[in-house]
C-alpha cells in the first residue's frame, strides 16, 4: 500500500509532523514501512526555466542538436541536446552546471563531439517526475525565464510503501492508516461526511438503467448498484490525478479515477459500468462453463462455475471483485453510469484471483475482508464526486440486494485480563482510553470493560485480541522485561538431537568437515540411491525446479558433489560429513524419516607431502561406521556385516551393515568408481553412511558396570582353510559359537579375531587360509592348559564339521 503523506493529511492533521516521524511510528503499530521515497519534483538547485531560442544540427552527430538557450541572465548559452520533441520558442527545464539531478547525476560544462555544452535540457524522468512522453519536458504557460523549476510544481510529497499484514484489511485504505497515525499522535481523525445520501431500494425503478438486479451466487452477500445520468467524461482535476499517481495508479478519466480515488481513501473497491453497454439487468452469478471474458488489461480469460461474475442478461461483464471487462467499462462516450459497490466473500475472490492469475487493487482489498460499512460510505463519497467532477445525477436510490455480512461486535474484556496477559499493571481507564483512540467504543462495567469493535476491524473478536490492540497502541516499550524462573521440566531431550551433536563432534575430530545440502534432489540421483521404483515414491507434487523434485534418500550424493566442488576450488577437501534427515520408502509402502550420518573421504592425497601416509581404506570406514553405530546405541552383538551391492557402492569394495534390532542400517566402502569419476573425482572415494529411523531412535541407556576377571586370559591360535567365497565374519562367528559351547558358562570367549589372511602358493585352488586368535578367560581362576587344549580340540572338530580344514 503506497501511502502519500499529503493524501494522509486529508484524514488527519499532520501539522508539525515530518514524514520520517510517520515512517518511524507505523512499524511500531504493526505496519511495516518497506520504503520511503519522494514523489514529485524536489527543489533542485541550478535547475531553471529556459527558452530554446534557436537550434541547429550538430556538425558531427545527426541525432544531436546544438541549442541556444536563454535562461534570462543575459546572453543565451549553448547546450547540446539529444531530444527531438521541441521547437524554437519552447520553454524547457535547464540544468545548469553545478546542478545535481536525481541519481546523483552532476551537471558540468562539457564537450560533446567537439562542441561545448553549458548544461543540460531535461526530460521529466531525468528530474524524478513520472515519465511522460519521450523527449524534453515542455513547460506550458510560458513561465518566467530563470525561475527555479520547482516553483512551477506542487510541493513534493513523500510516499511510504507500507506492508499491510493479512489481518489488517482496514489499512488498505488511507483512512485506516490515518486512524492508526492519529491514535499514535493523539490527534483526532478528520470527519468524513459525504453530502449525498444513499437511499436503498430492493429493486430497480423505472428511473434506473437496468430492469433487474439479481444475486444468485453465495460469493456476494451484499450488492448495490446505482444509476447516474448525464455524466461528462473527461480528465480529472490535477489534485485527483496527483493523489492517484502518488498511490501508483494511472489516471484514466474522471469517472474511473473517482472509483479509484474513493477506494484509496476507504479501502472499498467500486466499479463503474457504461449503462448503455449493459443489456436488460445485472445478475451476480457463477460463470457458466465455456463463457469467456475480455478483461480491461487486454487478456481474455476462460471462465468456469468456480468463478463469480457480474453479468447482464446475455454475458459476463466483470469477474466479481477482481477485474472489469473491456467492453462494458466507462469511455469518453459514456453518458449514463452504473456504479457498483458490493461485498464479496474474501475466499471466493482469492480463489477467482488465483484461478485466473489476476491480482488487482480490488481483489487485494476484497481478499482482506473489506469493511461492509464501506459500501455505503464509498457509494456516497463517489456520488458527491460524480456530481461535482462529472456532472452526473443519481437517478434514484441505490438498488440493494442482500445485506452487510457483519457489523459491529461487542466484547467483554474481563477485569484484570490485560494485566494478566501483560505481566504488569494495566489500569482499566488507561486500557479504555487506548481502545477509544482507535475508534472502539468502551463502557466500563463492574465485570470489566464492554467494548464495541467497529466493523472495519474484522480481526478483533476476543479479549486476547484487545490485549494486542492495547499493547500495540499503548506501545510495546511498556511490556516489562520479566525475569523468567528457570525450572527444569522433567522431560528428556530429543534423542536425535543429542546423538547428532555427539556424532558431529566425533567426525570433526576425525578430520572431517561438516556440510549442509538441500533436502530436495533430482530424480536420477535419488534413483541411483534407492532404485527408480522407490525414487518415484519420494517425488514432490509441486516441485519448483527440475533439479529439486525429490526428497533425498541419502546424504552421499551431496557430499560427493561437495568433494568435486572443493577439488576444483583447490580448497583441499579430504574428508567431509553431513548429518540430516533422509527419506526411505519401506516395504509397507510408508516413507520413513531417518537421521543420517554420512562421511566421504578421498583415498588419494590432495597435497604433496614430504612424508607419505597410508591411504584410508574400507576398513577405516568400517571402523568409523561401527563406532557411530555404537554411539547411536546399536548393540554390537546384533550387527551383521555383508557385502554391499549396487546403488552408490562399488561392487566388491563395500560393506553393508544390518541391525537385527532394526534400529539402524548402514554401509561403507568405496563409492561406485564410474559414478565418482563422472563427477571428475579421479581417485576412489571412500564413504560411510548410517541411517537411524527417527521413530525408533531412543535415548542411549547408561551402561551398567559388569564385574571383570582378575585372572589372566589364555590365547590360542587356529588356522583354517576355507573356500575363497566364505566370509571371514561367518567363520569367526562359527568358531566363537563352538568355543562358547566347548568351554561352558564359567569361561568367557572374550574374542575370536582374524589376524592373518593368506591365499596363493602352497594352498589348494579356490581356498584361503584364515588364522584366528581365540581369547578365553575364567572369572575366578587361572585356566589350566589341559582344559584349554580340550576346548580347542572341540573347536577344531567343529571347524572340520563345517567343511574347513584345520591347519596344524
Amino acid at each position, binding site marked *: 500500500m503506497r501511502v502519500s503523506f499529503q493524501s494522509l493529511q486529508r484524514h488527519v492533521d499532520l501539522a508539525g509532523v515530518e514524514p520520517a516521524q510517520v515512517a518511524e511510528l507505523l512499524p511500531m503499530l504493526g505496519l511495516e514501512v518497506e520504503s520511503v521515497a519522494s514523489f514529485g519534483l524536489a527543489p533542485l538547485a541550478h535547475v531553471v526555466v529556459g527558452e530554446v531560442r534557436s537550434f541547429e544540427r550538430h556538425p558531427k552527430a545527426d541525432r544531436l542538436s546544438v541549442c541556444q538557450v536563454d535562461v534570462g541572465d543575459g546572453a543565451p548559452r549553448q547546450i547540446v541536446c539529444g531530444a527531438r520533441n521541441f521547437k524554437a520558442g519552447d520553454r524547457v527545464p535547464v540544468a545548469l552546471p553545478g546542478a545535481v539531478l536525481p541519481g546523483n547525476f552532476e551537471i558540468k560544462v562539457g564537450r560533446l563531439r567537439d562542441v561545448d555544452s553549458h548544461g543540460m535540457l531535461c526530460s521529466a524522468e531525468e528530474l524524478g517526475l513520472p515519465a511522460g512522453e519521450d523527449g524534453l519536458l515542455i513547460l506550458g504557460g510560458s513561465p518566467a525565464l530563470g525561475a527555479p523549476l520547482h516553483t512551477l510544481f506542487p510541493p513534493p510529497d513523500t510516499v511510504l510503501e507500507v506492508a499491510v499484514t493479512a489481518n489488517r484489511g482496514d489499512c488498505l485504505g488511507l483512512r485506516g492508516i490515518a486512524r492508526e497515525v492519529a491514535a499514535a499522535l493523539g490527534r483526532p481523525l478528520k470527519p468524513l461526511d459525504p453530502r449525498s445520501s444513499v437511499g436503498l431500494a430492493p429493486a430497480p425503478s423505472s428511473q434506473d438503467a437496468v430492469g433487474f438486479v439479481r444475486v444468485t451466487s453465495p460469493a456476494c452477500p451484499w450488492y448495490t448498484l446505482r444509476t447516474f445520468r448525464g455524466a461528462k467524461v473527461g480528465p480529472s482535476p490535477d489534485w485527483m490525478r496527483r493523489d492517484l499517481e502518488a498511490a501508483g495508479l494511472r489516471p484514466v478519466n474522471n469517472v474511473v479515477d473517482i472509483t479509484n480515488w474513493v477506494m484509496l481513501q476507504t479501502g472499498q473497491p467500486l466499479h463503474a459500468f457504461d449503462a448503455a453497454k449493459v443489456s436488460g439487468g445485472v445478475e451476480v452469478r457463477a460463470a457458466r462453463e465455456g463463457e469467456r471474458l475480455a478483461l480491461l488489461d487486454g487478456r481474455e480469460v476462460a471462465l468456469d462455475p468456480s468463478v463469480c461474475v457480474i453479468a447482464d442478461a446475455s454475458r459476463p461483464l466483470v469477474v466479481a471483485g477482481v477485474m472489469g471487462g473491456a467492453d462494458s467499462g466507462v469511455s469518453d462516450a459514456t453518458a449514463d453510469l452504473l456504479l457498483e459497490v458490493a461485498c464479496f466473500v474474501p475466499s471466493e475472490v482469492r480463489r477467482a484471483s488465483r484461478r485466473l492469475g489476476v491480482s488487482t487493487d480490488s481483489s487485494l482489498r476484497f481478499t482482506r475482508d473489506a469493511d461492509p460499512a464501506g459500501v455505503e460510505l464509498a457509494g456516497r463519497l463517489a456520488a458527491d464526486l460524480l456530481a461535482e467532477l462529472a456532472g452526473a445525477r443519481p437517478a434514484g436510490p441505490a438498488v440493494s440486494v442482500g445485506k452487510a455480512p457483519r457489523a459491529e461486535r461487542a466484547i467483554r474484556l474481563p477485569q484484570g485480563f490485560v494485566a494478566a496477559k*501483560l505481566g504488569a499493571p494495566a489500569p482499566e481507564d488507561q486500557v479504555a482510553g487506548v481502545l477509544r483512540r482507535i475508534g472502539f467504543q468502551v463502557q466500563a462495567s463492574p465485570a470489566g470493560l464492554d467494548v464495541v469493535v467497529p466493523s472495519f476491524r474484522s480481526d478483533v473478536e476476543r479479549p486476547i485480541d484487545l490485549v494486542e490492540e492495547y499493547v500495540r497502541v499503548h506501545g510495546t516499550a511498556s*511490556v516489562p522485561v520479566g525475569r523468567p524462573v528457570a525450572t527444569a521440566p522433567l522431560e528428556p531431550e530429543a534423542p536425535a538431537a543429542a546423538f547428532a551433536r555427539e556424532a558431529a563432534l566425533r567426525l570433526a575430530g576425525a578430520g572431517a568437515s561438516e556440510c549442509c545440502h538441500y533436502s530436495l534432489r533430482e530424480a536420477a540421483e535419488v534413483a541411483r540411491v534407492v532404485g527408480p521404483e522407490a525414487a518415484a515414491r519420494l517425488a514432490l507434487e509441486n516441485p519448483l525446479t527440475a533439479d529439486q523434485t525429490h526428497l533425498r534418500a541419502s546424504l552421499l550424493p551431496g557430499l560427493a558433489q561437495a568433494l568435486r566442488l572443493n577439488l576444483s576450488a583447490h580448497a583441499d577437501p579430504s574428508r567431509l560429513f553431513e548429518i540430516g534427515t533422509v527419506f526411505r520408502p519401506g516395504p509397507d509402502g510408508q516413507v520413513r524419516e531417518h537421521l543420517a550420518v554420512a562421511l566421504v573421504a578421498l583415498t588419494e592425497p590432495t597435497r604433496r607431502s614430504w612424508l607419505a601416509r597410508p591411504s584410508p581404506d574400507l576398513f577405516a570406514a568400517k571402523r568409523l561406521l561401527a563406532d557411530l553405530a555404537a554411539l547411536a546405541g546399536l548393540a554390537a552383538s546384533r550387527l551383521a556385516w555383508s557385502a554391499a551391492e549396487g546403488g552408490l557402492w562399488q561392487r566388491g569394495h563395500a560393506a553393508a551393515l544390518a541391525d537385527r534390532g532394526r534400529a539402524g542400517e548402514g554401509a561403507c566402502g568405496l563409492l561406485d568408481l564410474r559414478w565418482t569419476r563422472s563427477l571428475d573425482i579421479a581417485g576412489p572415494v571412500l564413504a560411510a553412511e548410517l541411517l537411524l529411523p527417527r521413530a525408533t531412535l531412543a535415548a542411549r541407556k547408561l551402561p551398567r558396570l559388569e564385574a571383570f576377571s582378575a585372572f589372566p586370559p589364555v590365547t590360542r591360535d587356529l588356522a583354517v582353510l576355507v573356500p575363497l567365497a566364505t566370509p571371514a565374519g561367518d567363520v569367526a562367528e562359527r568358531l566363537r559359537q563352538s568355543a562358547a559351547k566347548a568351554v561352558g558358562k564359567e569361561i568367557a570367549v572374550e574374542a575370536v579375531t582374524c589376524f592373518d589372511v593368506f591365499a596363493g602358493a602352497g594352498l589348494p585352488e579356490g581356498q584361503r587360509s584364515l588364522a584366528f586368535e581365540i581369547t578365553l578367560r575364567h572369572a575366578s581362576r587361572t585356566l589350566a592348559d589341559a582344559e584349554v587344549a580340550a576346548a580347542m580340540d572341540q573347536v577344531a572338530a567343529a571347524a572340520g564339521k563345517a567343511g574347513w580344514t584345520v591347519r596344524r
Partner: protein
Amino acid sequence: MQDQLDRALSEAEAAAGAVRTRAELEALKARLVGPNGSLTAVTKVMGTLSKEERPAAGKLLNAAKARAEALLAGLLSKVEEAELAAALGPEVDPTLPSPDAPAGVLHPLTRTRERVLATFRKLGFVVAEGPEVETEWHCFDALNTPADHPARDMQDTLYLPASFRSADAPRKGEEALLLRTHTSSVQVRTMLGRKPPLRIVAPGRCFRRDAVDATHSANFHQVEGLWVDRSVTLADLRGVLDFFVKETFGPDAETRLRPSFFPFTEPSFEMDIRSPDLGRLSGRWLEILGCGLVDPKVLEACGLDPAEWSGLAFGLGLERIAMLQHGIDDIRHFYANDLRFLRQLA
C-alpha cells in the same frame, strides 16, 4: 707398580676412543678388569708386597680402579646413547609441516544451533523434534491458519502427492502431506504428546517453495520455542527473548517488540535488535524473530483449555542469526559447502 698401573690405564684409555658397540665395550672391560686383565694382573702383585709397602700400594691400586670404573661407565653411557640413536633413527626437523589433515570443522549452522540451544537450556527449555514431512493439520489447521490462507497455496508450499504415506506423520482422512513450512508444527506435536507445564525448543529444517537467491533458500533452519504454563505473560516473553539476544549478541544489544501478525499467536510481534557490534549493520534496527502469546485457538486445537493454560512461542531463523553474527550477506553460502567458507567460520 705406578708405572704398571699407568700403562694399563693408558692403554685402555687409548683403546676407548675406538669403542662403538656394547661388544667392543665388553672386550675392553675384559682386557682391563677381566680375570686376565691388565689391571687385574697388577692387583695380583699386591700379595707379593711387604706389610709396609701395602698401604701405599693399596692407595695407588684403589685410585687406578676408580679411574678404570669411571672410564667404563663413561663408555657405557656413550654406547647406550648410540644404541638409542640407532633405534630412533635420525633426528627430525621440527619445523617441517605435519602431513596430516587438520581437524574438521563443524558447519556454522550447527555451531549457531548449539549456541542457541545452550542459551535456552539455561532457561529450562529442552530440545524437541518433529518430522519434516508433516500433515496439513499439524502445519496449518492446528495453528489457526485458515483453509484459504495464501501460505497453503501450491505456489508457496511444497506438497507431496496423495499417494505418499509417511510413517512419521500419519494423516487423518484425505488431508495433504507437505514439507513443513515452519517448526511451529513441533509446538502442536509437543502439546498433544505431553502435559504442561512445557518448555521446549525445536530446531529443524523447514521448506518454502521459493526460488533461491541471496536471501531465499529452498530449505532453511528454524528454532521454535514454546513455553506453556498456568500464567505465561508478555513480560515472560520479553524476559526470555531479551536474555537470548544478550547471550547471542552481547550485553550492548537492545531489543524492541514490533507488533505483527501470525495466525498462531495473539498478540504477535517481530523482535528487532540493535547492536553497536554488527559491522555495517551496526546501530540499525534489525528483525530477528517472530513471537507472541500462543493463540487460544491453538491451545484448544491441542486439547488445552485456554482458561487454564497460557503460553508463549517464538520462532527464529538460524541462517538469519548466523548471517548477523558472522557478517554473511548471502544465504547460499550455507548450502554451497565451499571449505573456504566453512573453515573461516569454525
